[in-house]
């Protein structure tokens, strides 16, 4: 189990670095897909099967297609990529490094927690999730419909043409 974890983590970190390093945007997106799949593998290791499926469908599926679609529409390639100044790269490195320090610093305290926190094999199953969602978290589930409706109305409003002769 631990070997699988190390393998997946190695692959995740490697492909994440490749996302940043690779010149072509399309390659970046492809590496990002690998990253998402390896992270989805971690969910399986944590018994979170529902999260695993959702992660693949939403991130590796929908969002990646959206990314590729945008890259295709904007016709991005290596030549059109904007060159960032050294100053900007420097600043970005420092910011990301600081965030890393903060995260490492806050994770250091977790050593005190028990290692075998996942006592229940069944913890992340779809059945469990469904029971919680339609019992304790019923209201958030229903209120999400308002959020989705608002998003839908907004998308139609922004997308629909406002020229006079286009009115149906």
């Amino acid at each position, binding site marked *: 189990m631990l070997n699988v974890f190390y393998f997946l983590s190695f692959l995740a970190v490697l492909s994440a670095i490749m996302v940043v390093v690779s010149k072509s945007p399309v390659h970046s997106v492809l590496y990002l897909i690998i990253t998402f799949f390896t992270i989805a593998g971690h969910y399986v290791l944590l018994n979170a099967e529902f999260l695993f499926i959702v992660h693949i469908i939403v991130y590796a599926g929908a969002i990646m297609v959206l990314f590729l679609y945008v890259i295709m529409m904007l016709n991005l390639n290596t030549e059109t990529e904007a060159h960032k100044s050294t100053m900007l790269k420097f600043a970005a490195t420092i910011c990301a490094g600081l965030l890393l320090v*903060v*995260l490492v*610093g*806050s*994770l*250091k*305290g*977790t050593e*005190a*927690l028990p290692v075998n926190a996942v006592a229940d094999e069944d913890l992340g199953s779809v059945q469990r999730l469904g029971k919680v969602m339609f*019992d*304790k*978290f*019923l*209201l*958030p589930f229903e*209120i*999400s419909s*308002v*959020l989705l*409706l*608002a*998003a839908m*109305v*907004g998308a*139609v*409003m*922004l997308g*629909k043409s*406002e020229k006079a002769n286009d009115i149906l």
Partner: protein
Amino acid sequence: MNALLVICGLSIVSLLAEIANFKKWLTAIVILGLAAAAALLVQDWNTSVSYFSDMLVFDNFALAFTGLLAFISILWFWMASDYFQAQPHHRTDRTSLIIFSIVGAVLMASYNNMAMLFLGIEILSLSLYVLAGSNKDSLFSIEAAFKYFLMGSFATGFLLMGIALLYGATGSFDIREIAAFTTSHADTLPSFFYAGVLMLLVGLAFKISAVPFHFWAPDVYGGAPTTVTAFMSTVVKIGALAAFYRMFAIGLPSTHSTWSTILMVITVLTLVLPNITAVYQSHVKRILAYSSVGHVGYILLAFTADPTGASGVVYYYLASYAVASIAAFSVLHLVEGNSESITIEYFNGLFKRNPLLAVGLTIALLSLAGIPPFPGFFGKYMVFALAIAQGYTPLVIVAVVTSLIGVYYYFRIIIAMYFQEPQQATPLPVSGAQRALAFVLIILSFALGIFPDAVLSLIQ
């Protein structure tokens, strides 16, 4: 809860108005519906019921803030009726998006579970991203929407990460349970709990536009259509501050020592920076945007001084600020007409062109500046009194100086209205509804100033 359901229903009704063809009556129906929602709130007063396994708790704090939201929304719809009539397209969609964001604000004022906080913030923000960009012909409007969207999503990321870390540390999304857990396990809290608190603070500080997370505010307020800006600086701000208050006063009071210093720094920055920057602005919308960021500073001052006991003062301050803002923006909206950006010169000689509007705007600005006998003065006075009682005298001195700076830029507009020659000598025609609104707002300002106790005692 019933009020929330009524407001949710209103949004569906306004979507149906397009199909069933009663667009003409829509604004009237919405105002009536909001008034009905406010009436339902009175019924629940002093009951403090929690709904759906403690997801929402309608205690007096939530009821009072929901009432304020409904009331300010009614004033807003009244003010915006002209705007809706002038828009040939998407009138019903705009109305329903506004109502959706009111739903979000109500959720933010009444949540007891961080899942509801997140949903409330997202419903509110998502509708506003679209509304900020609803003037598709204007580049500024599109820029505002885009900036707001990018920065808002970024802040939401911080908020979510903070919620996740808090959940990891305490094992609950329920803010009361978190409060109980942090009190009983004060010594054994893991360090990532504090990282979570910090991220939550960043996420919420963005939503209330506290310095240094305010950079989006002037651009978004300046670029969005004026009526939408009025909505953002009143209803949205009330919702966001209510969410902020609930999170830190109910959920995290026992860890006060970890975030109070950071909050104090944020308070001082929020008092000083926007008030100084506003002096150098020539566009009135940007001045009002900076002034609204500055007012957050006074509210944060009350909150820093006494996190659990400031609810009455915060409520009164928000009420007086919202009434004055609606008044200022309603006049701004009428003076602006069809022009894209509005400088102080537009207000030259407004008193000669339309005395009623000029008097209304003067009262609003005097109230915002904090001149007695207007409610803004009593709001500031109570904030300062509270802070001095808790021993925060240096902060109060800073706040007094910044409010004096505020007087300067508010008076630039007032002087232009009375002592400059108008660019066009023609009188400014105003519809009957807007005249009535101006009267109502003037009376409200005086009433709030003369009877501050009626509002203050609601939730103290």
